[in-house]
């Protein structure tokens, strides 16, 4: 067995595989003792607890616990990543959900118990890394240890004859020449080892010259960098993330929004976020190109590309063009703009019985399936005899199912149809309570078309106008290509530009991102170094045999995983003992 007189091991957790066995035995004794004799004072207890917390075994158990604790978050929907899933879960499991909720199972990764596990782990980590770092700095300055008395028990032990200088003219070699040759050989070994990246130290023991060499301090450095960078990631995420924000905003083609708090549809500030930091630039969506597969029979209608062409205008500057695509966010004015969704925003105009326009807007309809069957709501609060709400379906390419129901069979505008159910009464928005623009609460309204009313739903194609029921007025589904003049050559049944599209943008700022990346790179670099740089010692000794001859002994010692050690010792012995190398250079000198 290799000797474990390893100074490094002392700074390791007591149950590290390379820590001295004696130490561990003492620890377990102390442990038993602690149970048997309650003499351990408060300080003693604290030291004992700390020692347990920073042991390898605790680190390991906490790691495994962390893995297990992460599992439930993948089985139950999480509020952070899937809020709709959580609502659905509550609806589907009304009895179970509140119980799960009381265990924070819908917020696993911010839950008290998950946090407890990783915080304990990181306390253990810090407690483990600090003494090791201190010790490592000392080790970096320490001399390689004395050459062991017997190299023959060590890894890769091999010997080579010591080449003596050629006797001149047959005369016997002078008495001191063997010593001189040995010294020269050890000198050469020291030089060669130093060149190979070893730190070397010459020793002279009982008249035997030797060199002790050590390399691979980088291994421990890498390990410490790795663990420290883990803490770095945690801190960067925990603190840096608090200064950022994320917001969502739907923008229809031709419209724009200004980066201010009020303009967002939804906004999530970090804990330390100050909205005075928002740079009020203007972002206009000039156009959204959607490309769908038309040729591959297996994938007709599959999206190929979405590109939002925008123009960005600083508060006091000129507009600059920009592009936002999936996978290619636009990074402007300290924020990142992502294209996370898109759909259609039919332009609808409502007139009163006199033909006066009481409502006109492009209303975003939310896609429900891959072919963009979309649902939207139109609210006309003023100008008509009563408040009017409409719930509609939009089909970019309408087709009829066997049941008579409509569906969309292709996501692009081939045969666009809008159907609307009309309600009159109280929209419920006057009280000032915020309501979603995407839902209609029909509880205090009267349904006029569709459903059980017996009146056909309103059905429109771009450019169509029909009367609203009850003589309320009229509604028009505007053809926006006509508005812009359109393509004069376009056929009458070309609807491809007839309906405006919207883009839903996510706008983020996360100042922790750069830091996390830096620490991630350190983690990877530290890992590579600590797992692949061999830490090893090597010794070369000019050993005197009982018969007075001197031989060169070579041996190594692995410190940690080092599969290449024996080969390395052999290779060094071969290289070094090639006599031409040192004896001739000695003679030349």
């Amino acid at each position, binding site marked *: *067995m290799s000797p474990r007189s390893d100074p490094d091991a002392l700074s390791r957790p007591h*149950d*590290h*595989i*390379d*820590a001295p066995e004696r130490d*561990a035995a003492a620890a377990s004794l102390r442990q038993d003792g602690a149970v048997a004799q309650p003499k351990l004072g408060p300080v003693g207890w604290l030291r004992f607890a700390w020692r347990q917390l920073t042991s*390898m*075994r605790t*680190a*390991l158990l906490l*790691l*495994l616990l*962390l*893995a297990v604790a*992460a*599992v439930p*978050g*993948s089985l139950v*929907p*999480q509020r*952070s*990543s*899937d809020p709709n*899933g959580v609502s659905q879960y509550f609806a589907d499991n009304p009895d179970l959900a509140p119980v799960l909720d009381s265990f924070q199972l819908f917020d*696993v*990764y911010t839950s008290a118990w998950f946090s407890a596990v990783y915080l304990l782990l990181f306390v253990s980590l810090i407690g483990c890394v600090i003494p090791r770092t201190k010790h490592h700095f000392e080790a970096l300055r320490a001399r390689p240890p004395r050459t062991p008395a017997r190299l023959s028990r060590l890894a890769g032990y091999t010997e080579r004859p010591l080449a003596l200088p050629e006797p001149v003219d047959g005369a016997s070699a002078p008495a001191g020449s063997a010593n001189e040759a040995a010294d020269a050989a050890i000198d050469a070994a020291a030089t060669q080892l130093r060149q190979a990246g070893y730190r070397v130290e010459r020793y002279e023991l009982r008249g035997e010259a030797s060199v002790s060499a050590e390399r691979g301090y980088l291994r421990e450095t890498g390990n410490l960098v790795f663990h420290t960078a883990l803490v770095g990631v945690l801190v960067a*995420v925990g603190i840096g993330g608090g200064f950022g924000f*994320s917001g969502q905003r739907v923008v229809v083609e031709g419209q724009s929004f200004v980066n201010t708090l009020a303009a967002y549809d939804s906004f999530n500030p970090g804990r330390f976020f100050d909205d005075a930091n928002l740079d009020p630039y203007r972002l206009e969506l000039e156009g959204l190109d959607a490309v769908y*597969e038309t040729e*591959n029979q*297996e*994938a007709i209608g*599959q*999206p*190929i*590309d*979405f590109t939002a062409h925008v123009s960005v205008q600083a508060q006091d500057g000129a507009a600059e063009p920009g592009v936002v*695509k*999936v*996978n*290619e*966010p636009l990074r402007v004015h300290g924020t*990142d703009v*992502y294209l*996370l969704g898109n759909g259609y925003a039919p332009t609808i105009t409502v007139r009163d019985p006199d033909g006066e326009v009481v409502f006109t807007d492009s209303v975003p309809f939310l896609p429900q399936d891959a072919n963009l069957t979309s649902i939207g709501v139109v609210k006309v609060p003023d100008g008509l005899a009563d408040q009017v709400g409409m719930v509609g379906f939009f089909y970019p390419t309408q087709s009829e199912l066997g049941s008579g129901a409509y569906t969309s069979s292709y996501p692009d505008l081939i045969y666009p149809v809008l159907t609307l159910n009309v309600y009159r009464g109280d929209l419920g928005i006057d009280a000032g309570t915020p309501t979603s623009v995407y839902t209609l609460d029909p509880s205090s309204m009267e349904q006029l078309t569709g459903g059980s009313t017996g009146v056909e739903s309103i059905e429109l194609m771009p450019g169509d106008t029909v009367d609203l029921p009850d003589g309320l007025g009229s509604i028009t589904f505007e053809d926006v290509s006509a508005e812009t003049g359109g393509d004069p050559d376009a056929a009458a049944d070309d609807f491809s530009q007839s309906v405006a599209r919207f883009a839903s943008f*996510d706008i*983020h700022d*996360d100042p922790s*991102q750069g830091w*996390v*990346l830096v620490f*991630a790179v350190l*983690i*990877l670099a530290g*890992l*590579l170094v600590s*797992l692949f740089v061999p830490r090893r010692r090597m010794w070369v000794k000019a050993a005197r045999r009982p018969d007075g001859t001197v031989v060169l002994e070579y041996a190594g010692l692995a410190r940690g*995983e080092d*599969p290449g050690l024996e080969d390395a010792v052999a290779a060094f012995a071969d290289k070094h003992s090639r006599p031409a190398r040192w004896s001739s250079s000695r003679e030349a000198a």
Partner: protein
Amino acid sequence: MTLDQISITLVYSAMAVYAIAFIAYAIDLARRSAAATKAVDQARMPAAVAVAATRSTSGDSGTDAGIASVPESTDGMTVDAAADGRDETSGRQAMGDTVAYGRSPSLRVGVAMTVVAWLLHLAADLTRGIAAERVPWANMYEFALTGTLIITTVYLLVLVVSKHDLRFLGTFVTGLVLVLLGVATVNFYVSVVPLPPALQSAWLVIHVFVATSSVGFFALGFALSVVQLLQSRRESIVASAKAVKQSFLATLPDSATLENLAYRVTIIGFILWTFTLMAGAIWAEAAWGRYWGWDTKEVWTFIIWVVYAGYIHARATRGWRGSRSAWLAIIGFSTVLFNFTVVNLFFKGLHAYSGL
């Protein structure tokens, strides 16, 4: 015949050749058992007395030698044997230590067939990629096709690089590849379709490829850990000198060697996995606007990473090196397989790219 159809034909051909290789490797394992039994029978005749003596006297030292967690247990055993002075006869040798196992024609057939299957498999993967005009790993079927190719590649690579003869892993490797390819062609197959915008990224090439590569290394580490456990069980039985039923294990490296090999293969997998996790985060930032959101697939990537970090720690923890750490490697690979199958198919999340 379209390129994709050619690719499919190549896949089926590769599967047929893998099956032949599998049978050859299995025959080899059977022959190993026979060789081991024979070695014991031969050794037992003259050494019966010595064995009996060993049994009655070296109970304690014998258990020591069998503890797999002593990395130098091979040395330990020989030193032990020499120190005892009683065990030098071949009786103990044949039962406890590695039985020399000469050249095996079936093993050579197995390796040759694996190489042929690998070539067909490579051709299948390349034609699929050319047919799709992109990298062939954008849906479950393609992950499986490329992932199994990488498992075989890693196996062949390790055969070339390793100082130890690891061809005995062929049964596991070809068996696993065969099963996965079977499931992929029957259950996961989708025809070539264009990439959805979310997958149009250089990270598809890097992130997914590196992830798949690390699975190749984890698979091999898993196989070695399983054999390690079997071997260390055998070693402790041998050490306690109960009646030993000889198996192919007698012809394989000892458990400490297997453990070191498993560790080396697995840490390569771990580094690749670490990179996978980071590359995934960078891609997620570009595609979804956040680098980490505890999406189900992210959760499982994290779990796998933590389990393997546990494995590495276990190797450095007294009382955990040896069989316990091997169990962690096995659990680790189980989570990898779980992530690839159950999570891809049944868990809801943003990573909905199975194409099914």
